[in-house]
C-alpha cells in the first residue's frame, strides 16, 4: 500500500514538474524591430533569457521602410501580435499619448535607471513629454550619426602634401564642418571615379532630416523649442540656415546620382571605393570593419560628427528604446524580461554581441571603447546628441521638412533661408491644428 501511495505521489510530483516545465516552454514573447544587424544580436542575446527561464523570445523584424507603418498598423488595430517593440525615438509621443505603450515610470524609478543609462538616451528614448519624469521605454540600442573615412587616402604623403599646399593646414580627421567641406572638395575627383563625401539624401523617412539636423545643431541652430512648440525664429534662424547651406555644399561633392541615399548607399560608398568620407549611423558600421563585406576594411577609420563654426558640436540621435505594447496579453512576462535586460551582466553581454548598450558603466569601460574601431567615436557622440521632434504628429512634421529641404539640397531650388521659412510656417500651422499653443 505504502509503495502504491509513494508511487502515486512520485507520479504526481513528476507530472507537476513536467507540467511546470511545459508551461514555461509554452510562454512566448515577441519583440518587434527593424531588419538590421542589431536585431540579430538581440535575438542572440534573448536566447540566453530563454535558456535561463524557459520563456521563448522571438525578435520579429521587418525592413526599415515598412517598420513604422507595420508597427502602427498593429497598434491602431489594438493587436497583440507584439509584446514589445523597439520603437524609434520619434514614436514616443504617438506611442504614449495614443495609449500604445505601457507607462514604465514606476519601473524606471524602482530600478533607478536614470543613474544607469546615459542621460541623452533617457531624455530621447524614454521620457515623454520632455522633462515630465514619465517614461515609456527602456533605452536599448543607442545610436547616432557618425562618419567613416578612408584612412589610406588621408595618410597618403602625396595627398597630405597637396592638401597642405591648397588649404594651408594638415589633412587629418575633420574637427569642423569647414574642414569636412574642404576635405570633401579635395578628394572629389569625378574623372578618377573618386568622390569627396557620401551623405544621406533619402527623404522617404528620416534619413535626410537626420543628416541635415546634425549640421543645423552643430551650427548653433535648432528645429524648434520642443517644450513650447515655438518655431518662428528658431527653425528658421540664421544659424539653422547656415547649417542647411553647409549640407547643400557637401552635396556638391557626393557621387553622381546621390539623390535617394540612406545607410545602404552610404556604406557602399566606402565598400565600393567611391568616397573619401561617408555619413552613417553607428549601428551600420559593423560591415565596414568586416573584410568579407568591405575590401577596404583595414583602411577604414571612423570619427564623430565635427563641430560648427562656434565650436558647438552635436549629432543627430538615432537608436531606440524598448517599450511594452499595451495590447499585449503577456505584459507581466514582458516586465520580467525587462528586469533581466537591464541587469549589468546582460548589458555587458549585449555590448559584446555588437549591440549599442546605453548603460553608462559599459559605455565608459575600456573594454567597450576598444572593442571596435568605432566604439570610441560612438562613446564621444552619445554625449552630444540631439533628436528630432517626438510629438505625436511627428510624421506630418517630418514630411513637411522633407518637402521643403529636399528641393533645396538635391534640386538646388531656392535658398536655405526660404526652405526653413517655409518649414517654420508649415510647422506652425501643423502645431496650431493640433492645439499645441495653449
Amino acid at each position: 500500500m505504502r509503495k502504491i501511495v509513494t508511487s502515486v505521489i512520485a507520479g504526481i510530483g513528476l507530472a507537476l514538474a513536467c507540467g511546470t516545465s511545459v508551461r514555461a516552454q509554452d510562454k512566448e514573447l515577441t519583440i518587434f524591430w527593424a531588419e538590421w544587424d542589431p536585431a540579430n544580436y538581440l535575438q542572440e542575446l534573448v536566447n540566453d533569457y530563454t535558456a535561463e527561464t524557459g520563456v521563448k523570445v522571438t525578435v520579429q523584424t521587418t525592413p526599415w521602410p515598412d517598420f513604422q507603418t507595420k508597427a502602427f498598423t498593429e497598434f491602431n488595430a489594438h493587436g497583440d501580435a507584439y509584446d514589445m517593440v523597439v520603437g524609434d525615438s520619434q514614436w514616443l509621443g504617438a506611442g504614449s499619448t495614443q495609449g500604445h505603450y505601457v507607462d514604465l515610470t514606476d519601473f524606471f524609478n524602482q530600478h533607478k535607471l536614470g543613474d544607469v543609462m546615459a542621460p541623452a538616451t533617457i531624455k530621447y528614448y524614454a521620457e515623454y513629454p520632455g522633462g515630465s519624469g514619465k517614461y515609456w521605454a527602456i533605452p536599448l540600442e543607442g545610436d547616432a550619426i557618425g562618419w567613416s573615412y578612408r584612412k589610406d587616402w588621408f595618410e597618403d604623403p602625396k595627398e597630405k602634401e597637396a592638401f597642405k599646399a591648397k588649404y594651408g593646414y594638415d589633412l587629418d580627421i575633420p574637427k569642423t564642418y569647414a574642414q569636412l567641406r574642404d576635405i570633401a572638395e579635395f578628394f572629389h575627383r569625378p574623372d578618377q571615379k573618386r568622390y569627396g563625401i557620401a551623405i544621406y539624401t533619402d527623404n522617404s523617412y528620416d534619413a535626410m532630416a537626420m543628416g541635415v539636423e546634425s549640421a543645423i545643431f552643430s551650427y548653433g541652430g535648432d528645429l524648434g523649442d520642443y517644450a513650447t512648440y515655438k518655431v518662428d525664429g528658431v527653425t528658421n534662424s540664421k544659424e539653422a540656415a547656415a547649417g542647411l547651406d553647409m549640407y547643400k555644399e557637401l552635396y556638391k561633392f557626393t557621387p553622381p546620382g546621390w539623390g535617394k541615399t540612406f545607410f545602404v548607399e552610404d556604406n557602399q560608398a566606402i565598400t565600393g571605393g567611391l568616397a573619401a568620407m561617408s555619413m552613417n549611423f553607428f549601428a551600420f558600421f559593423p560591415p565596414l570593419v568586416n573584410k568579407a563585406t568591405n575590401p577596404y576594411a583595414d583602411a577604414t577609420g571612423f570619427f564623430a560628427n565635427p563641430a560648427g563654426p562656434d565650436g558647438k558640436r552635436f549629432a543627430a540621435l538615432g537608436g531606440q528604446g524598448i517599450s511594452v505594447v499595451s495590447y499585449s496579453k503577456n505584459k507581466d512576462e514582458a516586465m520580467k524580461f525587462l528586469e533581466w535586460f537591464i541587469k549589468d551582466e546582460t548589458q555587458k553581454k549585449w555590448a559584446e554581441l555588437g549591440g549599442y548598450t546605453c548603460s553608462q558603466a559599459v559605455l565608459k569601460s575600456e573594454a567597450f571603447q576598444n572593442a571596435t574601431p568605432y566604439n570610441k567615436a560612438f562613446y564621444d557622440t552619445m554625449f552630444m546628441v540631439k533628436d528630432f521632434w517626438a510629438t505625436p504628429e511627428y510624421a506630418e512634421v517630418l514630411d513637411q521638412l522633407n518637402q521643403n529641404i529636399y528641393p533645396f539640397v538635391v534640386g538646388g531650388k531656392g535658398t536655405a533661408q526660404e526652405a526653413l521659412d517655409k518649414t517654420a510656417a508649415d510647422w506652425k500651422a501643423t502645431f496650431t491644428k493640433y492645439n499645441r499653443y495653449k
Partner: protein
Amino acid sequence: MASVALTNLDPASRAAARGWSDLTIRNMFIIPTLVFLIVFNIFPLIYSLGYSFTNFAANRSEPWQFVGLQNYRELLTDDHIWSNFVITAKYVIVSVAGQMIVGFGLALLLNRSFPMKGLITTLLLLPMMMSAAVVGLFWQLLYSPSWGPINYVFGLGDFAWLSNPDSALYAVAITDIWMWSPFVMLLSLAGLSAVPQHLYEAAAIDRASWWYTFTRITLPLVSPILLIALIFRTMEAFKTFDIAYTMTTQPTAELIAIRLYKQAFQQWDTGKSCALAYIVLIMVLAITNLYVKYLNKVKER
C-alpha cells in the same frame, strides 16, 4: 448510355439525377461573389465615404468628430495637393501618350509574317508580367549615373535622372512606358487582326499610299480598341504608386497616390486621406466617362 437515359427525363428529374439544379449551381457561384463584393468592396467604399466627413485618425483612441466638408475644403485649397495633381496630370499625359505610340507602333510592326514572330511577341510582353516594384528598382539601377548603362549608351556622362528635379518624373514615365506599352501592343494587335483584308486589297488596287491606307482604313477601324486601351492605361497611370515610390523621392515626382499613401499611412490622417481618395476617384470617373462618351461616338460612325 447514361446520358441518353437522362435526356429522356423532364428537367426537374434531370436536375435531381445530376444532384444539383441549375439554380443551385448558379446560386453557389453568384451569392458568394456578391457577398464578397459587398463585404470587401462596396461596404468599405461607403464606410470610407463616411470617414471623409470626419476628423478620424486610425492611430488615435479619442472619438472622431463630424467635420462636414472641412477635409474637402482644406484639400482643395492646399497648394501641395494641387501641385501633386499637376504632377500626376503631366505624368499621365506623358506616360499614356508614350505607351499608345510605342504600343501601337510595335503592333504595326508585328502585324505581318516574319520568322520567330511568336517568340518576339512573347519577349515583348515580358515587362508587363513583372512586379512593378521590382521594375522600379531595376530601372533605378539602369538610370544610375555611376554604373547604369543608360547614360553610357546615350553618352550622357553623369546625368542624374532621378536626382534631378526636372527629369525625375519623366524617368518614371519612361519606365512606365517600357512596362505597359506591351499591353497597348496586345490590344492593338487584336484590333489590327480584325481589320478585313479585302479593304487593304481594294486600297492596293486603287494605288492608295501607305499613309492614306493607314489614316483611312487602319486607324478608324482600330480606334475603338485603342480607346479601350487608353481608358485602361489612363486609369492605371492616374493611380501609379509602386514604380514612382520605389524609384525616386523627388517632390517633383510625387504623384497623388504617393501623397495619399503618406497622408493615410505615415501621418494617419485617415479622414482627410479618405476625402482625398474620393477626390481622386471622382476625377478618374470623370475622365473615364469622357473617354467612354467619345468611344461610343466612334463606334456609332
